[in-house]
């Protein structure tokens, strides 16, 4: 199916949940609202015309100008779908974007739909702060209930890839800088 057909099928089925469809360009995607994202995910995986069985990556984006955090899901179908687009059938790829507000960044976890999502969601939480509710590897600590961090140490403070991240002054007694001069000015 072409990206336009995929976007149209989604819009016909889910209506208001599909906020917008951007099918032009190199990265055709639709924007899905966070509250119905899990339904859309199951449909994308199970529908016989879609059959997106491979979640390639979850990428987090910090849209500071809109005050939003964005999770981009890159999907791919490894088997040809029921509607072949030629002699060998077409294996299509598509992307879905979910935008959440910065002060309440909660998205439903799709780790039960695509198992690889577990680690990708942990990384998106660790580096950007998007909280995925329902991730199998969830812990509760001073930051609330969130997926366990995967790259930074468990007691790290902050989410490093946010655009307003302040570098730590020290961690567990080790100074953050070798000398007195900070080579990096504080970001606004």
């Amino acid at each position, binding site marked *: 199916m072409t990206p336009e057909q995929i976007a149209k099928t989604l819009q016909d089925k889910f209506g208001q949940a599909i906020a917008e469809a951007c099918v032009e360009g190199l990265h055709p995607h639709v924007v899905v609202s966070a509250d119905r994202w899990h339904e859309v995910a199951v449909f994308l*995986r199970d529908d016989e015309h879609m*059959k*997106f*069985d*491979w979640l390639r990556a979850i990428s987090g984006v910090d849209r500071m100008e809109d005050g939003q955090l964005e999770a981009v899901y890159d999907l791919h*179908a*490894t*088997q040809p779908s029921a509607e072949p687009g030629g002699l060998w059938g077409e294996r299509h790829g598509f992307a879905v974007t979910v935008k959440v507000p910065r002060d309440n960044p909660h998205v439903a976890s799709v*780790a*039960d*739909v*695509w*198992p690889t999502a*577990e680690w990708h969601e942990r990384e998106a939480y660790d580096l950007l702060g998007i909280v995925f509710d329902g991730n*199998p590897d969830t812990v509760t600590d001073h930051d609330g209930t969130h997926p366990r961090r995967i790259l930074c140490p468990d007691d790290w403070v902050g989410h490093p890839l946010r655009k307003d991240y302040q570098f730590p002054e020290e961690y567990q007694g080790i100074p953050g800088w070798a000398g007195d001069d900070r080579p990096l000015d504080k970001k606004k």
Partner: protein
Amino acid sequence: MTSDVLALAPGVDHVNVTFGVLLFCAAGGGMVLAILILGWLFRPKVYNPDKGAIYECGEEAIGPGQLQFDLRFYVVALVFIVFDIEIALFYPWAVVFGGGGFEQATVEFMQRVKTGALYDMLFFFGVVVVGFLYLWKYGYLDWVRALGGGGLSAADRAVPGDARPTAGSEAGQ
């Protein structure tokens, strides 16, 4: 059968030999002791609580270091000990049975030895074989226990399997 127990070279007597062996052992032990004492005199002694901690590649050790070994290894070792000693006891019998160790092995002497010795050894071997058959029949020689009789459940095995359940159904298959 009148040969000496130990024939030494001319000029050497037993006292010399014993003294030589003892001197050798003392010299060896003395060298080791000297090196240890020199080390004790010159090495630095700095105490650090981490030095007494269990080594776990830099992490803090979780849990004790001892696991219970699989009991099948114990059974294997025990069976080995018993049958190894049996084989060790075969050797002198076999030497005598073959005629070795006698200066003059006459034919009629050997015939007398052989009949008696054969029945003796068959009796000994028979007793040990009965034990072996018992082990075999009751399954103590099987490494993998047959299902439905005395096997360990997955929860009790010494090697833990993957405890986490697979997440969700297969996607797309």
